[in-house]
């Protein structure tokens, strides 16, 4: 990509360079420790409290540093990097406002169990607690949304803390870890003693071997089930268990639905796949869950957007829940068989004994009939562009092989419904927190992780304006993200709720005053295209794909289009509004 890229050396060369026991500053210790963790890309934004760190990065080429235009861009990019690779994403921000600008991104990663190592500067220790310039208690502010956090008091602790932070972020239920470094610590000189030993933290253990009795009970339950269903979530992707899931489904012949974060964890072309469940899930998936007598939850957390009204959720089902976080088992839905463990480890054990669900023949036929009779559908138009059609076009032209990131709203649901994923880590979206502004910067992170792959960032006209400034870093670093804007000129999902639930009382959703997105792109030096009908859309998209660098394509779509099926908040997932198509 860009000419300012780090020149990658061999690991041995770098190790020899980093491992010298020099007396160096805390900042240099930080950089060396990051390198020892295998970090190759950091997203950040300098400021007063991290100046020593940035000074240490002057002329530093052993990893890439991407200067975003907003700290929120940096942390969402780190998040996208982590989701696309499975390696912890790293970002750096200064104290006070720099640190607080990260809060949304930390919460986003926490809700979706994404491993991040977040480094913030703080004022010098002597100023902590004095309301000093750009001081904020960021460890206090982020305590409820981090897996763990550190306030570093001594530069000599940095190697251990960095080593622990990466371990904590990326083991067990993954999540963001924050390291707050006061300015005097980043300046403090001390002897660098690298932390290389395996991390041992008392009371924080890897999950034990899965309970064999529970697995036997699970195999038994599958034999007895007449209407079994698998609900697979993000845990399948995070654990790298997609092959094991496919093997499990193939061996048992049980129909499977994947949650929003589970998309890509199971090949969408498989005939046992039923699509996504929940609020905007398919008829087949929702009805299968509701009528099931055995519900096998694999790495999903029974989020309320999946279960909807809990009291009416899968009432006849015996529930099996496999999760790496024991606190999720029984948290929302009472569980008959709980299996605590890493999904890959558990499924590997299960697969050794798994046999076909032989009593479920009629059930499978019913599901195939439902798939045939109630597919996702929309009324196409030759006059106006339909957003669903745009997504289908993107899917077809990319052979379903792109990494797709989305922002939050209607376009996100259409992308989830109409782009069919076959590989894990190809789908990057903010599920738990539903963070607008996430889509575009997360795509930048994914592209930094996979320079060779096609990355498509699908946004609405609302969310695009929450982090549009990051077009600059695509332009100057030649990061070839293809940015799609589904422009319906309103806050579409809010409009949909106001129409369906609030009796057409459209309150403050008109995005009039939005920029000309083509000109906006061009203002940053990025190629921009606009399309208002199918012919323009195909051509503009093709041109964008043929553009070697970044490109923005604005699809002006029908304004009043809604996402269907839909289940209203408070209703059960069988109370589906199917739409007019």
């Amino acid at each position, binding site marked *: 990509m860009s000419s300012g890229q780090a020149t990658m050396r061999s690991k041995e060369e770098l190790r020899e360079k980093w491992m010298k026991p020099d007396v160096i500053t805390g900042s240099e210790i930080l950089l060396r420790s990051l390198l020892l963790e295998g970090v190759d890309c950091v997203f950040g934004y300098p400021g007063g409290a991290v100046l020593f760190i940035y000074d240490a990065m002057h002329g530093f080429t052993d990893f890439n540093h991407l200067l975003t235009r907003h700290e929120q861009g940096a942390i969402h990019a780190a998040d996208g990097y982590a989701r696309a690779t499975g390696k912890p994403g790293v970002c750096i921000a200064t104290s006070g406002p720099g640190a607080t600008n990260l809060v949304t991104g930390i919460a986003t990663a926490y809700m979706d169990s994404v491993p991040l190592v977040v480094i913030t500067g703080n004022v010098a220790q002597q100023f902590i607690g004095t309301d000093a310039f750009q001081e904020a208690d960021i460890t*206090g502010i982020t305590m409820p949304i981090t897996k*763990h956090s550190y*306030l570093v008091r001594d530069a000599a602790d940095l190697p251990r803390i960095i080593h622990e932070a990466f371990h904590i972020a990326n083991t067990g239920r993954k999540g963001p870890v924050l390291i707050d470094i006061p300015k005097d610590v980043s300046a403090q000189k001390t002897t660098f003693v690298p932390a290389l030993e395996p991390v041992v*933290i*008392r009371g*924080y253990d890897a999950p034990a071997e899965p309970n064999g009795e529970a697995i036997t009970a699970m195999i038994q339950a599958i034999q007895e089930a007449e209407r079994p269903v698998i609900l697979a979530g993000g845990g399948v992707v995070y654990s790298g268990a997609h092959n094991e899931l496919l093997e499990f489904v193939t061996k048992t012949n049980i129909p499977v639905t994947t949650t929003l974060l589970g998309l890509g964890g199971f090949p969408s072309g498989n005939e046992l796949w039923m699509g996504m469940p929940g609020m905007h899930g398919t008829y087949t998936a929702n009805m299968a869950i509701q009528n099931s007598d055995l519900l096998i939850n694999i790495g999903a957390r029974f989020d309320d957007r999946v279960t909807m009204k809990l009291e009416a959720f899968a009432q006849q089902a015996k529930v099996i829940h496999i999760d790496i976080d024991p*606190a999720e088992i029984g948290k929302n839905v009472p569980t008959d068989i709980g299996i605590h463990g890493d999904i890959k480890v558990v499924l590997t054990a299960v697969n050794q004994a798994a046999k076909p669900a032989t009593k479920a023949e009629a059930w499978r036929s019913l599901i195939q009939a439902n798939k045939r009779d109630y597919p996702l559908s929309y009324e196409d138009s030759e006059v106006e562009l339909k957003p669903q059609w745009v997504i289908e076009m993107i899917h077809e032209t990319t052979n379903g092989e792109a990494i797709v990131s989305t922002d939050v709203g209607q376009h996100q649901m259409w992308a989830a419904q109409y782009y069919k994923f076959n590989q894990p880590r190809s789908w990057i979206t903010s599920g738990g927190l539903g963070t607008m502004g996430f889509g575009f910067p997360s795509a930048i992170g994914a592209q930094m992780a996979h320079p060779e792959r096609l990355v498509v960032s699908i946004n609405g006209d609302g969310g695009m304006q929450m982090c549009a400034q990051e077009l600059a870093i695509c332009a100057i670093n030649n990061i070839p993200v293809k940015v799609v804007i589904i422009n319906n000129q309103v806050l579409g999902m809010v409009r949909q709720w106001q129409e369906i639930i609030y009796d057409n009382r459209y309150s403050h959703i008109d995005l009039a005053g939005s920029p000309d997105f083509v000109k906006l792109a061009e203002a940053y030096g990025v190629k921009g295209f606009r399309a208002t009908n199918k012919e323009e859309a195909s051509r503009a998209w093709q041109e964008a794909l043929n553009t070697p660098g970044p490109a923005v394509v604005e699809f002006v779509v029908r304004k009043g289009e809604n996402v269907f099926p839909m289940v209203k908040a408070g209703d059960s997932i069988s109370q589906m509004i199917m739409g007019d198509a």
Partner: protein
Amino acid sequence: MRKHTIAVIVNDQPGVLQRVSGLFGRRGFNIESITVGQSEEKGLSRMVIVTTSDDKMLDQMSKQLYKLIDVIKVDDISSNPMVARELALIKVTALPERRPEIMGIVDTFRAAVVDIGTESMMVQAVGDTDKIDAMIELMQPYGIVELSRTGVTAMVRGNIK
């Protein structure tokens, strides 16, 4: 909903009380009292939390606490025979003529007078929560000027650790 006494062994780190109490607040768990101090092992503190919850909530409490990196062990000690004690300091209005009466209550409760002013006495009471409640109730008529309770600390009886 029942009252539970939970002992939590935590790393003696800055902010650990905030992590634990913050978790309770955020997840909607109730805290009736929380005490924290050194444990038998250097570097570890023992927190004793008294809470009212049903079984499901109690299970969640324990599991969520275990997710905190600084939490090492969580025990519902009220499921065992236990000793639970609280300390209270009660400053009560006590003109010389009322003092014998007050002393009578103090003796009955095996409490102690730890300070005497010209118009007040400070009483120290140690015992389970019911005893402290009773003591306070009896002191009320004399006029409680100031009251400070520590909250409960507790331990399982016998050789069980």
